[in-house]
């Protein structure tokens, strides 16, 4: 059931302009990255981890991909977080949806070369 308004969702969607962004990551699960992206935004992972799962020092939410924890650890953490992250029970985020999210975060673009950053 998708309860978010399509306008709100559209305003939050992240489109990657990078050429490498669509490169699929390691297929650790049978999840769908496209569905995972929608779920990632619908259940608000992006609020703390960023739309590209890039992490943020402000919310202390770490990057989730493209190199990710093994799926089992990823699931365990999402269900029973260690510190500040709100827990996601299977009632509000099913195992299948979590697998989709995993497919999304592991298929994010690799970081650019550090020399792109001004020193």
């Amino acid at each position, binding site marked *: 059931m998708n309860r978010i308004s399509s306008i709100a969702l559209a*305003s939050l969607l992240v489109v990657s*302009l990078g050429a490498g962004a669509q490169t699929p990551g390691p297929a650790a699960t049978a999840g769908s990255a496209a569905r995972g992206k929608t779920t990632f935004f619908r259940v608000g992972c992006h609020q703390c981890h960023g739309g590209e799962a890039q992490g943020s*020092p402000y919310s202390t939410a770490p990057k989730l991909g493209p190199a990710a924890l093994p799926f089992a650890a990823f699931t365990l953490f999402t269900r029973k977080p260690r510190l500040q992250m709100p827990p996601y*029970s299977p009632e509000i985020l099913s195992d299948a949806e979590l697998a989709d999210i995993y497919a999304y975060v592991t298929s994010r673009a690799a970081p650019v070369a550090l020399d792109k950053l*001004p020193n």
Partner: protein
Amino acid sequence: MSQSDEVSKGRRSFLLQAAATGAGAAAAAATAAAAQAPTPPQGAASPGASPSASPSVSEVRSEGRPGSDYMVDVLKSLGFEYICANPGSSFRGLHESIINYGGNSRPELITCMHEESSVAMAHGYFKAEGTPLPVMAHGTVGIQHASMAVYNAWCDRVPVYLILGNTLDATMRQPGVEWVHSVQDAAALVRDFTKWDDSPVSLQHFGESAVRAYKMAMTPPSGPVVIVADTELQEQPIHSDRTLVIPKLTPPSPPQAESGAVTELARLLVEAEQPLFIADRLARTPAGLERLVELAELLQAGVVSTIPNLMPPVGAGRMNFPTRHPLNQTYRSNAAIAAADVIVGLEISNFFGATNIFIDQVERTTRPAIRPDAKLITLNSTDLIQKANYQDFQRYAAVNMALTGDGEATLPSLIEAVRRLLTDQRKSTFERRGKALAEASAAARERFRGDAALAWDASPITTARLAAEIWEQIRKEDWSLVSGGLSGWPVRLWDFTKHYQHLGVSGGSGIGYGAPAAIGAALANRKHGRLSVNIQNDGDLMYAPGVLWTAAHHRIPVLTIMNNNRAYHEEMMHVQRMSNRRNRGVDRAHIGNEIDNPGIDYAKLAQSMGWYAEGPISNPRDIGPALKRAIAVVKRGEPAMVDVMVQPR
């Protein structure tokens, strides 16, 4: 020229001269001198001194002029450059005296569109300049508007100088609005979060209290003060049978911690294996930063300052330590705090939060973030100023030693005490420790650069990419980040070395601080030729966007980059937390939190108030060229905005 004209003109030029060498200069001199000599110089240039008068007072003749002229003389003697106000009838007399009698110069009137903006401008101005900026407001509706900003200044230890108009004598009030704009005790509303106030009943009383208020505000721990300017005092002529004097201001020397405790702290630091400093509102002046660098280098000890990833941010109060200094352990603060055997909190209220981990789950729990044998020490002036009602003093931290005194003023004697205890053997241990800390901080920095390189081309643009793009454009300029944290990326990616490059946070986390504080700081930076950079949160700007007009009207150059993420994301996270906890899903957490549908066109908003503005920009490649164009405008002396669509975090 009539005799009284002559008197007035002569006195005015004297006062202007006094102002130039007066409070501002004397305050700076006192701060510098405080490090070495606690006693202020006798007979030094003072606002009240004149070649012929006694050193403590100056005469002000009083022939038929209004009381507010004398008030202006007092304000001039204190060296104020500007005065902020949204106009109000309860200080019409003072307003008129400032612009006509005072020549609208020192202080020059800055037109504000909200009293909260006036106070926040004064707040930002002080942190860039080191001297207060007064604000005029109605004693009723004006201070009611201003009160949140006063609370921010209180929490941030900033001396905002408030002058409130009021008519105490009920028989003198015009029926109607003047009654609803009158109050028995105007300062009562903010007394819980101001340092001092008075409601003078004579002009001489006003003069003495105005000078006392300045002194109280500036004595560390600093804080806001209130002086009520009664309308009758402002508007009635000065009685010719009275001679008014302007009292001399002697800038106070700040309190230092007791010498025995300083020696004991030095011993602990020299003997420690992993000493660590956590600095928050330590560096009141550039000297504070220099002294902390000296102390850290002497001991080769780590420093944590400006930790933007703790909630609330710990140590983000002032620019205490260069961000790229090898001893800066901020980017690995958890590890540094966990490893330390002696932790010294310098002018930090939230020492408990810095040394414990608080977990906001269903059951709220706390566990220590430190070694069980770690010794905790505080050097704070905050204990000298606490009040009961508002809880900005934070949770009680059980420490091994609590030194009461101003941190910056105490550092020189602490440095001397450490020097006396140094041995060659300890020095070689320190050297090894310094090398290890330098390696650890360099590794942490590389990790952050790696994280910043993620999602580089994403749109909406990542906060890291925006910080990097801004840095690329400003790094060769004399820049000052006047407001805006941008998720903590600037302090990670930019090279902050100077005191004015980071002005810290609001204090009370009262939203609406960012835009006016930035413009107040930019006003101070203007004469120094600094490029003021404001990274502006969208929600913050919408509290009182009229301050954009103030910047355009007074030609205050500031580069504003909109951190446009279209929601109150902090609050969104809280609602998510509640929704998950109650197992209801977070799909609707945007309700009541988004600033969208319609999205706000900030460039148009700014343009409508006379700004150069571009955006919204959603392709990261467009940021650099837009910033270049905006910086060219700012260098011409005007404000400019670039609106950028960014990620939530």
